[in-house]
């Protein structure tokens, strides 16, 4: 009876050690890439005219341990080149209430970290802006560099899907379709 109990106890400890060994390497082995100086462009158009709000403060993280992709941008950093238009953009997006545009999702394709040629990747996740979240698919191009990843991606949203009322310029409404593109070099963590 006494011997059996010893064996049970040892089995539990072995199980605990297995879990420890499985858990602990997660942060140690995690291969993630991070940057906080990426470029994001929000392009809007009215008939015969197009303008772009640009920010160079896009923050991004790609984590190959769980295949997650996480990007966010403080919308108050968008600069369209005209201060009055920046103000209009902030009012339209209600940045005081909803300061971030963010995408959090997963890689649908695996990235070959040895291949130095540009690779097309697909991601699926939740894109949030103006306090509204929608699931979207985004395609991009990733290039593996030494200790870094260079990522470019673009997609389009319909403003009304995010309850954004487009402003009008001289009674001409801004187009419902907004183009978003990102361009970021993520350093290995």
């Amino acid at each position, binding site marked *: 009876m006494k011997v059996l109990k010893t064996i049970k106890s040892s089995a539990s400890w072995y199980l605990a050690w297995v*879990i420890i060994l499985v858990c602990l390497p997660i942060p140690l082995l995690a291969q993630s890439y991070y940057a906080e100086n990426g470029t994001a462009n929000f392009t809007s158009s009215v008939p015969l005219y197009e303008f*772009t709000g640009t920010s160079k403060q896009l923050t991004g993280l790609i984590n190959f341990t769980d295949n*997650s992709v*996480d990007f966010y941008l403080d919308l108050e950093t968008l600069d369209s080149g005209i*201060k009055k238009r920046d103000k209009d953009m902030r009012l339209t997006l209600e940045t005081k209430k909803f300061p971030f545009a963010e995408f959090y999702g997963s890689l649908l394709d695996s990235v070959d970290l040895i291949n130095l040629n540009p690779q097309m990747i697909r991601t699926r996740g939740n894109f949030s802006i103006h306090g509204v979240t929608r699931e979207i698919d985004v395609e991009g191009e990733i290039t593996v560099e030494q200790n870094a990843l260079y990522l470019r991606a673009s997609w389009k949203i319909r403003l009304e899907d995010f309850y954004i009322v487009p402003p009008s*310029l001289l009674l001409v409404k801004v187009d419902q379709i907004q183009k978003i593109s990102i361009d970021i070099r993520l350093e290995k963590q």
Partner: protein
Amino acid sequence: MKSIFFTLLLLLIVESTQAQMERKRSIENLPNPELFLSTSLVTAQTVNIVPKGEIQSAISHSFGSIRSGWGDLFGLDNNAAVHLGLDVGIAQNFSLGIGRTSVDDVFDLRFKWMPYRQNSSNSRPVSVGFYLNTALETLEERRFNYSFTERLSYHSSLMVARQFGRKITLQLSPSLSHFNTLLSQDNNSLQHTVFSTLFLGRLKINERNSLSFETVPILSDPEAIHHWAFSYEIETGGHVFQLFLQSGYLFTEQYIIKQTSDSFWDGDIRLGFAIHRVFQLKKNK
């Protein structure tokens, strides 16, 4: 043993849920308050300045006196006065502009310097700047043969403004105006140099709409009539629209100070409008 197992399991769960980054603001400080919607109200310059790398065009239009009644559709049919202006932000705190008023064919060259601006932390409680313009009257005068210098007039202002709370802005602009030439019909001595103080105010209705006024409460010339104007302003995507009522139809500071001949409070009121539009000089890279 069970507790160790569950602790480790919890660690695993926490590990996986922590994958999303904590969101951090890139801009911590509030933007500086916008004291006025545009660089000028009806005529008087505000402490707003055209930002560096931007160019602003402005068209101001004033109709005839509403006294004319239905016959002239309350002034809409006659006596239109137009001012066209173009201002460029050539440095962070410095702008240069040109303009032309249709009445007396007056061209004006102006510059504005805004070295000190009210900020949101209140370490700078007021905005202070300097404004100068030189106007050239080019209307042909058959009675006199004016030289170039005789056609010139000048105006300079020290502008001090503050936003009180989030809604009200007031501005005082002690000014000095000078006309090289004045005409008199009764041989009275004329004051070529006039000291005055322009007084401007804005009530912010919301982020895109304002009510504002401008007047000249202090005037060293006893003969001059005090100018008054009230404006309703709408801002949208790089444009500012103004609908206004004013006593005169002149669009240069020294002219409204020295040569306003209609009294607002006696009913000599004109309807007018202005459109300010900002353009980008250089595209973002």
